[in-house]
């Protein structure tokens, strides 16, 4: 059976005449009704948010875009952290002092050199590592919690803000820096 009207129904693409035809077919043909229900059940699974099916271990680095996927887990973790604060204030202080590993990644296959500079390096440039022939450059850094400003320097002189970190601000030299906030201060 190749009743494309079933998919049009699933995708909310039916006009009024199509809807009349669809309802008439459902009433007239049991096989059409069964086909529709079968595809609707498949659609329920197909439209399940993929994010729900990937556990936190799938997130190899705390990049902002990946942290967003863990939002519900983050809420639970934050609630747990609040409880810990109430009970053991000193432990929280220790946590705030401890560095957080963070992986910076940028995709630029067209450059032969990539560096990062920011408030956490006293604005000294650090070279990034090229990931084979993939076009990606990366560097892992341990950063203290709090707010950091940084920018990538590509090919020696092109300053590029991190495209996955929406928070930005203009610097004093006409450029734009990314603003990274690691951890919530309690």
């Amino acid at each position, binding site marked *: 059976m*190749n*009743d*494309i009207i*079933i*998919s*049009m129904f*699933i*995708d909310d*693409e039916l006009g009024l005449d199509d809807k009349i035809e669809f309802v008439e077919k459902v009433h007239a043909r049991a096989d059409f009704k069964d086909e529709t229900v*079968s*595809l609707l059940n*498949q*659609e329920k*699974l*197909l*439209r*399940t*948010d*993929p*994010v729900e*099916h*990937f*556990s936190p*271990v*799938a997130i*190899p680095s705390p*990049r902002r*875009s*990946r942290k*967003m*996927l863990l939002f519900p887990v983050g809420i639970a973790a934050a609630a747990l952290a609040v409880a810990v604060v109430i009970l053991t204030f000193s432990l929280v202080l220790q946590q705030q002092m401890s560095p957080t590993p963070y992986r910076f*990644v*940028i*995709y630029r296959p067209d450059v032969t050199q990539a560096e990062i500079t920011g408030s956490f390096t006293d604005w000294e440039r650090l070279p990034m590592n090229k990931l084979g022939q*993939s*076009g*990606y450059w990366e560097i892992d850094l341990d950063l203290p919690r709090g707010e950091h400003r940084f920018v990538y320097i590509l090919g020696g002189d092109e300053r590029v803000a991190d*495209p*996955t970190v*929406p*928070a*930005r601000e*203009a610097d004093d030299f006409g450029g734009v820096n990314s603003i990274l906030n690691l951890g919530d201060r309690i």
Partner: protein
Amino acid sequence: MRYSKTVHDIESIFEANKDRLFSYIVRMTGDADEAHDILQESIMRYMEHYGAENNSRALLFTIARNALIDHTRRRRVHLVELDDDHEDPCTGQEHALLVKDSYRQVLSGLQALADDERDILAMVVSSDLSYQEIAGVTGMSVANVKVKVHRARLRLRNLLKGEEP
């Protein structure tokens, strides 16, 4: 403050569409890590070439689709077998993904579809775009989108039932 407005707009566009884009890409690749990388590349292309003034969802999906095509050219998409005994494509590599069995089956089924079928079905279920808008993104006619979407659903069902190799 023009600058603040631009940043705010870009952030809003990103926030409003990142989950849809990620869902589309992960359905296309079957791999969350690859999806993250392609999403990042898509956002970068969008910001470099368009900006906050061009904020249609169809444009974002066009960019993501092009990034996927480029990514596929650079690196073969890892095909997932439907056989339950196969090594999990995610846990078998350095990044261990825990995916529920039923959903993994659907992702595996998507990977077994023809490229154009997977593309059209992943976009329909992920994007909230109309057939008309998807026709614009893919370069197909609306009539062709209708046919291909339904054909892809039927093929996916047959694959999940084990009725197709």
